[in-house]
């Protein structure tokens, strides 16, 4: 039975793990407290904070959006619905021509279709879309998972602040506009 030492070692490992989980204070204080010793995070009583760059939900900064439709086009799932119209904005200087701008009417993201790939955020040339680490937005009705422009604007409050890059990396311009 040359495998016997290995078998006994395996038994010792499992037993030790059980004791460590049951008595996290060590065997000197034999009070069983498995909720501290186990590695389980008991959601929803205890919530683990996701890292700031975690991809939870996508927020829209309406001021930057020009309804260029790039995000809607690049979305693999076609879950972004954009409607806009052209307006004439007053000229910038005296005696100038009124210029044409895009005005955003409708910007909806259907989170029942969204696969959280982030292509829309990457592709937006005007930095109007941002990731936030918020993940608790389940709804009772499927239709409520279509977030409209106002709701997407509300998510902007949860977008985390700009994180400092590590030493030696290429410094970039601050991306999140101050609210």
């Amino acid at each position, binding site marked *: 039975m040359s495998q016997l030492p290995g*078998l006994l070692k*395996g*038994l010792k*490992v*499992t*037993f030790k*793990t*059980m004791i*460590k*989980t*049951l008595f996290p204070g060590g065997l000197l204080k034999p009070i069983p407290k*498995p*909720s501290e*010793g*186990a*590695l*389980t995070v*008991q959601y929803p009583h205890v919530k683990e904070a996701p890292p700031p760059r975690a991809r939870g939900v996508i927020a829209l900064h309406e001021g930057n959006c020009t309804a260029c439709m790039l995000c809607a086009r690049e979305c693999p799932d076609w879950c972004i619905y954009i409607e806009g119209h052209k307006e004439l904005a007053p000229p910038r200087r005296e005696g100038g021509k009124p210029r044409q701008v895009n005005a955003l009417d409708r910007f909806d993201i259907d989170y029942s279709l969204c696969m959280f790939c982030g292509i829309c955020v990457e592709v937006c040339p005007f930095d109007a879309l941002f990731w936030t680490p918020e993940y608790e937005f389940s709804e009772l009705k499927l239709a409520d998972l279509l977030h409209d422009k106002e709701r997407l604007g509300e998510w902007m409050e949860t977008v985390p602040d700009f994180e400092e890059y590590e030493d030696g990396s290429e410094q970039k311009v601050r991306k999140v506009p101050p609210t």
Partner: protein
Amino acid sequence: MIDLLALSPAWWQETFLIKVPIGLLAVLLPAGTIVYLYLFKAISFMQSRLGPMEAGPYGSLQLLAEVGKWIQKEDIFPSKADKFVFAAAPFVVLMSTFLLVVIIPAGPDALFVDLDAGIYFAMAVSSVSVIGILMAGWSSANKYSLLGGIRAAGQLIAYELPLILAVVGVVIQAGTMNMQGIVLAQAEGEIFGWGGIGNPFILTQFIGFVIFMIAVQAELTQAPFDMPVAESELVTGYLTEYSGIRFLLFFIGEFASAGVFSAIAAVLFFGGWYVPGIDPASQIFNVIGPLILAGKMMIIAFLIFWFRFTFPRFREDQLQRLAWKFLIPLSLANIALTGVLKVAA
């Protein structure tokens, strides 16, 4: 105990009002406790996780929730399944478990039947569950179930022999096959002339105990011998087509059998309902005996689940080799040694 209360119930009252409910409780209560305490909790702690915590305080009502869930499921029959055999299989397995409870003594008078061939009856009846498993595997009309059933047949038949031979050593030492007699032989025995703690057969029959536990692990198709129910390979083996109450019956049967075999091991090797210090003939054992037996049973059942979680699965040929080439010669040697020492001493 009945004499204590100065009752003299009629035969049918004693059977149906006292023995049958206690028998049901003796099977279901250990099954439930073992499932919760060991399957849900102890194995979770061995994996550094918590197990069920939501249903009831610390997840104690999880078993109730599971039972409710299984009961309300749809009863699915494969269309090509052999209806009668498919339906009867869980009952055959459960029946053998219930029959095993009948001969376990829980006190000097607290037992169901005092059979002179107690342990022989137990071994014979435990083999009936093999038929139930084969029935389940064959009647499911599913090649995975069939494979699981055939693996089960090979495994269970192979491990019947070490199970029985390990017990023979105890029988030789006790001199009787009567379970109550085995307990009394341990209670009144002496180790080299000192009768302080009686003579628990674990001391002299340690090899027998190890063989018995390995064989029990295989008889219950618990890992590392769970080829018939090899989850990642055969879906659930012979249990694949069972759902709802039928699956629940198999589930209860599996864990009730674990409890019952642990109780048998407690009686054979650890002295059953006896604790040293009290006269074995005293009436107090009728009250605390069941509790003592339950305690010993839980400790031995822990061993079963500890091995279940620790070791990876045996391959079918490794399993057979272990039984035929290692355990059976070892148990035969154990019997020879026990016989020689019994006659010489």
